[in-house]
């Protein structure tokens, strides 16, 4: 299934809760959650480890808006809005971790 996160991992525990509870699947990082997709943060190690269990995607327009599209962690896939729609369509269910 698809897990959507929209909060910065440095401000809120949404990412941690998702990584703790979710079964292996796909995670899409949008809005302030895209910081989790970037190198050099305090949460980078957790995200790199999670890549073993999850396909992790980040919304490119949100990365670009925040000027961090050039520091995406290797293994994280960037998607545009139509890629977002494809992810929703190809998964049986999705959960937003607010």
């Amino acid at each position: 299934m698809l897990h959507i996160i929209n909060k910065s991992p440095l401000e809120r525990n949404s990412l941690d809760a998702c990584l703790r509870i979710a079964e292996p699947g796909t995670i899409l990082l949008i809005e302030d959650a895209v910081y989790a997709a970037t190198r050099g943060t305090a949460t980078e190690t957790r995200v790199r480890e999670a890549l073993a269990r999850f396909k992790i995607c980040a919304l490119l327009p949100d990365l670009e808006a925040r000027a961090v599209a050039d520091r995406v962690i290797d293994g994280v896939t960037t998607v545009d809005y139509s890629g977002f729609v494809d992810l929703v369509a190809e998964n049986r269910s999705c959960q937003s971790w607010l």
Partner: protein
Amino acid sequence: MTEGTSKKFMFVNRTAPYGTVYALESLEVVLISAAFDQDVSLAFIDDGVYQLKKGQQTKGIETKNFSPTYRALEGYDVEKLYVERESLAARGLTEADLIVDVTVLGSRELGQLIEEQDAIFSF
């Protein structure tokens, strides 16, 4: 309602009561879903477990204490309440601190249960 139209709805509650309106809004939608004969379950994760803390006294903040509603849910055939063990432990709480009978599950078991749902409502 005809047989076969019931879906598995899970309400995932991750916020404390009163600080925001999420907990109360979640309860409202839970009751609506139950009225439409859906297979409803509730999960309490992170600060969401505080929604079920026994002994809430809201007179001082002039807000309705909605915690008794959790006890009334079984009257609407909503009997599946799940609490994540790790979230309880992180807050120094045990099952005995909760206002209603729940099933305590580890992160892994809860994740499997979420996977089985047709629709997930996040609050």
